[in-house]
């Protein structure tokens, strides 16, 4: 593919955008963020916290003076 063809491919085609009433669009956005925020508020499982703790510890083992 030539550079020109690549740029053409990358260009946003407005016809592929589906117009949505701004009020409805905002409602969709609000609901989507509400959903994602609820997932964000969930406690990260212990096994992931333990992994991160282990990685941080390994980090210090590699460079002992780092925490001082």
């Amino acid at each position, binding site marked *: 593919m030539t550079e020109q063809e690549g740029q053409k*491919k*990358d*260009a*946003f*085609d407005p016809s*592929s*955008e*589906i117009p*949505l*009433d701004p009020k*409805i*669009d905002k*409602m*969709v*956005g609000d*609901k*989507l*963020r*509400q*959903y*994602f925020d*609820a*997932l*964000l508020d*969930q406690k*990260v*499982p212990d*096994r*992931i916290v333990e*992994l*991160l703790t282990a*990685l*941080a510890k*390994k*980090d*210090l083992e*590699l*460079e002992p003076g*780092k925490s001082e």
Partner: protein
Amino acid sequence: MKAPSEAFTRGLVETAPALRAFAISIVRRIDRADDLVQETMLKAWAAHASFQEGSNLKAWLFTILRNTAATQFRRARREVEDADEKLALALSGDPEQHAHLALDEMKQALSQLPEDQREAVLLVGAAGFSYEEAATICSTAVGTIKSRVSRARASLAVKLSLGANDTTN
């Protein structure tokens, strides 16, 4: 081997909840999402030398997670059937019934979107990435992401009964 910077390690910790929220949304199984986040953390730590300090760590981590998920999707596509039930169980601890119903509604609506639209609308509409960042994460053109997000939002409006006509199929 040189250790990652403190900022890098701190970034891993701070991004974990967002990575997990995105993982749950795209794989729709809590146990698999947690596996995915763990694998992402390990890969990121192992590859920290290739991360350019000062660039977007969150986007870099999401890219690793998304690529890892794509590999896993190919391996486990058949196991998706019971996903919605397991996610509903995981979210059932929500004390506010009304909020829970709203989440359940969005979860169902998202599950009906094509995979590429779902990840695009989650990255841009929920996780806070720009179109350009989402395009980098998904290894596609910015215009493609804009189109996917637009179609996903229109489709969600219909599925959530917000008064739009479904023109996405």
